[in-house]
């Protein structure tokens, strides 16, 4: 909250020059007044809107790191400058934080004093009736049977039945007020927004998320090491993860093959992951289903189905026929037809101590034409692998590298048998390709799907949700309820036994309904007279 003590506005400093009598305390008070004024709040609101813009235009690192790096690489001048300014991480940038923190400080500074005032207003009496009710924008006068004090009693009862709070400051008037809930709602709305941001911060500090790619048949155990990527919040201890496991037993995918129109053919239609879920080690596994809109609550984070793809089962043998590598190898989809990239890293040394590596494409419905190898439909109708082969060192200096690509710095690409061209391997399911030069063989044994499972925990989400709903309620109250004051004065009429009732209404802002409100009060009054 130290931000609140900083001058919010350059004008502050100018005022300091022209008003030297303003001491440091006065200056602070002035800055605070400026910051908590409605004008500043409005300015900051509009600024938030503008500042949020670039994050929707430029790729954001936290959402898509690859696309961000790509964008920066393509824009040699602008890229690094924008990067320094935080345009690829807008919502975590200091300037964005500065704006919304200032906005919230301004909000607190505005809402707290208003809450105090409102608290007092709710407990104080409606003010004394003005001398001349006919000066009020809405006013009316009727003459009724009965003595003044008797009529006044009924006026009060009529106002109360119209949900007014009433008080008589003297024997001939009633002051009435209603609509306190408008300001209550307004304050609730603003205070609840603080709850929203606290909930978001809490979730950021204590939440975590991790992603794992799980081919059918494999089991995931909830430990940090088992995640492909994990980003825990600053206050999360990954040692405390709940030790559940889940085995992916089946994965169903359906794609549109009925409607031929543009944008629809080949669109995904349904993904379902079937898992054997074991809550604690040794417990009986339960059959569970994870769908795109149906996550699985594990008791230690929620498991979402966020991606899927193919994991062809690939086997590499040496010249003697010994199996060096045999795994369902996930390939990551690059487009809507699941043209997927991946790599096979045969860590066991081949001849002459060299390691073998394969990189390339998996194509679920493969087509090979002048446009090159590609997939034309996302389902596995004609699956094929298009690979290149490399030999050398797979993990030079133990640098971290992606599972889905080869680091070929210390590798050389293999050539075909007569050495005339680079070796290209095309494998359909069940086929085996014999590598030239007695390097062994590679086989495309079978095909599995994999599920991209994301497991996330956000302990702040309930607070955020409740606060957001409270804000909505407050908003509705503050926008629909009207604050109204009604004053009534009675006076004996010229004729004996009759009373003149003057009624006037005072509303905040322009209130078209005030006339109707007075009519309503008079109707209630007349009902009581008959």
């Amino acid at each position, binding site marked *: 909250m130290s931000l609140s003590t900083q001058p919010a506005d350059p004008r502050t400093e100018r005022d300091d020059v022209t008003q030297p009598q303003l001491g440091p305390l006065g200056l602070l008070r002035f800055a605070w007044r400026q910051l908590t004024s409605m004008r500043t709040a409005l300015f900051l609101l509009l600024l938030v809107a503008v500042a949020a813009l670039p994050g929707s235009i430029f790729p954001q690192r936290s959402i898509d790191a690859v696309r961000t790096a790509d964008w920066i690489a393509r824009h040699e001048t602008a890229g690094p400058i924008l990067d320094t300014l935080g345009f690829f991480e807008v919502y975590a940038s200091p300037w964005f934080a500065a704006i919304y923190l200032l906005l919230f400080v301004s909000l607190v500074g505005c809402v707290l004093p208003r809450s105090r005032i409102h608290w007092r207003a709710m407990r104080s009496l409606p003010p004394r009736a003005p001398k001349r009710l006919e000066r009020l924008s809405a006013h009316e006068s009727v003459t009724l049977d009965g003595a003044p004090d008797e009529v006044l009693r009924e006026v009060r009862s009529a106002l109360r039945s119209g949900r007014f709070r009433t008080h008589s400051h003297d024997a001939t008037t009633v002051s009435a007020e209603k609509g306190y809930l408008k300001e209550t709602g307004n304050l609730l709305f603003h205070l609840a927004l603080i709850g929203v941001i606290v909930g978001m911060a809490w979730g950021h500090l204590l939440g975590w998320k991790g992603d794992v790619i799980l081919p059918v048949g494999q089991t995931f155990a909830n430990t940090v090491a088992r995640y492909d990527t994990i980003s825990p919040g600053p206050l999360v201890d990954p040692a405390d993860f709940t030790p559940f496991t889940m085995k992916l037993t089946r994965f169903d995918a359906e794609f549109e093959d009925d409607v031929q129109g543009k944008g629809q053919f080949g669109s995904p239609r349904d993904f379902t992951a079937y898992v054997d879920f074991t809550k604690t080690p040794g417990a009986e596994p339960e059959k569970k289903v994870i769908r795109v*809109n149906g996550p699985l609550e594990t008791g230690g984070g929620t498991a*979402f189905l966020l991606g899927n793809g193919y994991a062809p089962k690939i086997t590499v043998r040496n010249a003697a026929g010994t199996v060096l590598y045999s795994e369902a190898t996930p390939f990551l989809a690059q487009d809507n037809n699941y043209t997927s990239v991946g790599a096979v890293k045969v860590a066991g040394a081949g001849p002459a101590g060299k390691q073998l590596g394969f990189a390339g494409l998996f194509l679920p419905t493969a087509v090979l034409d002048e446009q090159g190898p590609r997939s034309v439909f996302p389902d596995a109708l004609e699956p094929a692998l298009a690979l290149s082969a490399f030999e050398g060192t797979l993990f030079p200096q133990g640098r971290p590298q992606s599972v889905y690509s080869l680091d070929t710095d210390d590798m050389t690409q293999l050539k075909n048998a007569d050495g005339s061209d680079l070796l290209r391997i095309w494998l359909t399911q069940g086929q085996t390709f014999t590598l030239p030069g007695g390097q062994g063989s590679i086989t495309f044994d079978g095909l599995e799907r994999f599920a991209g499972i*994301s497991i996330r925990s956000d302990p702040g989400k309930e607070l955020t949700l409740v606060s957001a709903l409270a804000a909505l309620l407050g908003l509705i109250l503050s926008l629909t309820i009207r604050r109204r004051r009604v004053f009534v004065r009675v006076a004996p009429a010229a004729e004996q036994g009759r009373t003149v009732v003057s009624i006037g209404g005072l509303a905040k802002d322009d209130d078209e309904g005030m006339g109707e409100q007075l009519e309503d009060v008079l109707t209630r009054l007349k009902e009581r007279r008959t």
Partner: protein
Amino acid sequence: MTNETLASYANLSLYSAMAVLTLSMLGYAGYLAGLLPARDARAESADAPDRELVSAGGGSAGDGGPSRADAVTARGGSDAQVPLRARKAAGVAHTLALLGTVLLFASAALRGASVQRWPLGNMFEFGVAAALFTMVVFVAYGLRRDLRWLGLFVVAPVLILLGLANTVWYTEAAELMPSLKSVWLVIHVTVATISVGLFAVGFVIALLYLAQDRFGTERGVLRALPDGKTLERLTYGLHIIAFPLWTFTLIAGAIWARQAWGSYWNWDPKEVWTFIIWVVYAAYLHARVTRGWRRQSATWVAVAGFVCIIVNYAVVNMYFVGQHSYSGL
């Protein structure tokens, strides 16, 4: 599975709606046109009383009754002072607007039936629904007060929207992608579209208010409108209904995002824009009560809000890379 027959009926219903609404638009234009000569005649007769016969020669003077300075109903005159021709045109236009709305509803319902899902799954369907809800807001509000002066300014943009939906954004009836298969599609997108309908009518009135403020109340068609204060109140009244609905859209979207994408807020471009729109309209509501801000300036903020809605719909869906890529294009 798609029922092709129902899908083609849905399109037929949509074309009929467009035809009917075109006639309705002409009717409303006729109403405004019929209103203006009466005023011109009055203005002229005030300057040169002997010219009254000439200018009233169209035969409407008798129907319109004695002309008075506030003959236009929107400014508080009684309906009897509106020329019969104009009244007839508006009556026909109103009936056609109602029919067009019903046909739009039928189109959306048939499309939903043809694919057995809620018909809000792609740009085309959003466009039709937004047009439908804008018409519903206009027709429903028109039951409570005289909005004949507004007809042309609502029906014309609705027709443009339908035209765009039918040409640029047209998508064949088909099933949804998995992430859209949720009850939250019904809740989130429907409420979003309803509030867009309210914002749209509010936006049109805001523009008319600003135009009247800029060009004066006595120029061209602006004479046929209610006074500035009424216009400003009308647009504010629509915005304070739409804004809580938009807030709800934001919350419902967050709940759905958590279910479908694992996190209630992902800073996806569509989310960012929904948030920006929310902030801009919040700024409008604040500006309206900020001392030192004129109502006109505040109304400009509301106009900016709707520009953001248009961007959010027409630009973000098509050109920004994000998780809300459901345009079907």
